[in-house]
């Protein structure tokens, strides 16, 4: 059984913070398919389009029929451990620092044999389920876990190294005024977060979420406005060294496209909050978080952006808002690249219309704060990079994956006119 993690003691101020190290990062182009699937939490392998043989390791031609068509598909994650070892010494610092490390080979029901990490609760030679998760190099790796859930299995050090679990970690939610803030704070604390800090802009004007947040034990409101560089820097100065997970929920949204607005006023506000706000936060909090990715049980682990799914493809009714989210989405990719050397993970949570004032004129389905916060927590617990929250977001992403061009036409063709 996994030994439950205990809350870490306060940090010894005389000890040097451990520099982040990473597992191997280099992958072939084919193998990046595994990482791409892991970003979404999918267990997918290449399956030959001609003969159906499932392939592993990832390759460029089918080892059964030499076909070059090897699309990635979800396959059964079940299999059986063939053999195992516990690596006690490694030339790679990342594993050397974390030894002993249990690995094994698994015969997958779908065909191939995989080398994988073994969860501590797997019995030798037992049936297991494979998870495809991102490691701290940002690459997909396979972890065998028992078929049935075991107590506190998420505390297994090898599993925890692959996730962004909020348990025992300190979370900063950037915008108390977003209607989703109370639900986010509640869910994170329920998931074991040690503390939830919430940034509060413009404390001089009231907002309905404030009393809700103040009523939650473990929540602390602190002044920060993502449009105000100095306030972001100030809070980063105070909290940067103990922000383990940052959830950027700051959002400025107004309806309208380019012509319906007729000016750049709201667009500027949208860019200030949705795009430059993210940049300010990253510049202020990023470096300290990156330096603390190996800092024990409550190490810095993830950066979460809550974005509109229309970052992927514009929704003209909220056209300018979509554009600011596209900018933020693009910036998140840049950030992911810049965080990569530290192992800090960027998780984007894409939403459809949310259940709040700004989407009031739109019909359901809409994303409730509770479902958003559930997606955020589950995404962190699974160590994902991409989360699509709600039916609209999933629908848009499915269409986007199939054809961005068709999606654009679907969302912009409007209604039958004269």
């Amino acid at each position: 059984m996994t030994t439950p993690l205990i809350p870490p003691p306060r940090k010894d101020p005389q000890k040097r913070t451990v520099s982040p190290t990473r597992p191997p990062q280099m992958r072939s182009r084919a193998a990046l398919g595994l990482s791409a699937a892991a970003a979404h939490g999918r267990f997918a392998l290449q399956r030959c389009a001609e003969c159906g043989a499932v392939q592993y390791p990832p390759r460029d031609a089918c080892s059964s029929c030499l076909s070059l068509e090897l699309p990635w598909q979800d396959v059964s994650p079940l299999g059986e451990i063939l053999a195992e070892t516990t690596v006690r010494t490694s030339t790679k610092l990342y594993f050397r620092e974390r030894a002993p490390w249990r690995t094994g080979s698994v015969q997958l029901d779908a065909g191939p044999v995989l080398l994988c990490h073994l969860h501590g609760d797997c019995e030798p030679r037992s049936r297991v389920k494979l998870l495809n998760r991102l490691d701290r190099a940002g690459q997909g790796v396979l972890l065998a876990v028992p078929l049935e859930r075991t107590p506190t299995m998420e505390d297994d050090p090898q599993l925890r190294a692959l996730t962004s679990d909020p348990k025992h970690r300190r979370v900063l939610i950037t915008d108390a005024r977003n209607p989703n803030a109370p639900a986010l704070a509640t869910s994170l604390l329920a998931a074991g977060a040690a503390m939830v800090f919430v940034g509060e802009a413009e404390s001089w004007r009231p907002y309905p979420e404030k009393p809700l947040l103040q009523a939650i034990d473990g929540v602390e409101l602190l002044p920060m406005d993502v449009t105000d560089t100095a306030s972001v820097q100030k809070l980063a100065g105070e909290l940067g060294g103990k922000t383990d997970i940052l959830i950027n929920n700051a959002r400025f949204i107004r309806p309208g496209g380019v012509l319906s607005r007729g000016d750049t006023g709201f667009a500027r506000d949208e860019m200030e909050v949705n795009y430059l706000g993210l940049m300010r936060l990253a510049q202020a909090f990023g470096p300290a978080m990156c330096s603390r990715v190996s800092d024990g049980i409550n190490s810095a682990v993830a950066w979460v952006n809550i974005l509109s799914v229309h970052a992927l493809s514009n929704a003209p009714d909220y056209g300018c808002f979509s554009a600011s989210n596209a900018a933020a989405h693009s910036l998140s990719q840049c950030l992911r690249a810049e965080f990569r050397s530290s192992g800090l993970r960027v998780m984007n949570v894409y939403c459809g219309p949310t259940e709040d004032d700004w989407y009031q004129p739109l019909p359901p389905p809409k994303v409730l704060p509770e479902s958003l916060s559930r997606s955020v927590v589950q995404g962190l617990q699974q160590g994902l990079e991409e989360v699509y929250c709600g039916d609209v977001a999933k629908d848009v992403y499915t269409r986007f994956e199939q054809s961005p061009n068709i999606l654009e036409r679907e969302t912009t063709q409007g209604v039958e006119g004269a």
Partner: protein
Amino acid sequence: MSQATLSELALQIASGEVRIVDLTHTLDPDFPVIILPPEFGQCARFRMEEISAYDHRGPAWKWHNISMSEHTGTHFDAPSHWISGRDVPNNSVDEIPPQAFVGPVAVIDCSAQAALDEDFELTPEVIEAWEHQHGRIAADSWVLMRTDWSKKSGADYLNMKSDGAHSPGPTPDAIRLLVDQRNIRGFGTETVGTDAGQGAHYTPPYPAHFYLHGAGRYGLQCLANLDQLPATGAILMAPPLKIKDGTGSPLRVLAMVPAAQHEGAQQ
């Protein structure tokens, strides 16, 4: 005024016989601005970004880019700010004759009443009572409504509730009296606007804005330190930035106060 008078003024300022009182709030990103319903365009908060600070972006110098609305912080309202003043001649800050920026000021102290009533109204009766004590308001002077509201901070300043802001201000009749009968130059307050927090519910809505600017008069708001001014006898200096077609401007508002009167006001 002779050369000698100006020299005398300079000497008196230097000696402290004439005090310079700063009526301005510091421009601060966290200073409240007026809040309109969110579907309307909004007043930009004051923001400041470093261009360089003796670093790789500029090794020997430090400077900032700043951004804000014309109506952020302690600011001046020109007639063109309001629809009633849209066709008034010289209605933008760049066109207002500069002599309008310096002039006598009368201060109506409503601080005691405002302390008891957040929606305190400046009525003709209050004005007349003041005149009874201090004399008739001189034509072409600034009239400032002292409420000590500038001493509030944070949420208390806007005092926003579910039905909007609550802060003192003039009634339509009071403004009409000042504009039409006293022919004042402009009207200033310590609150975020020249109108009361609930000013939208008067007829016309926002009467101070409507009547002042319709008559080509000016507004000053977010003033501070009005408790350091005498009821009469001080000179106000309030020159806005010269912004082309500007409807207003953040500015530094100063008052020259004879020292004796200053001390009197302090008490």
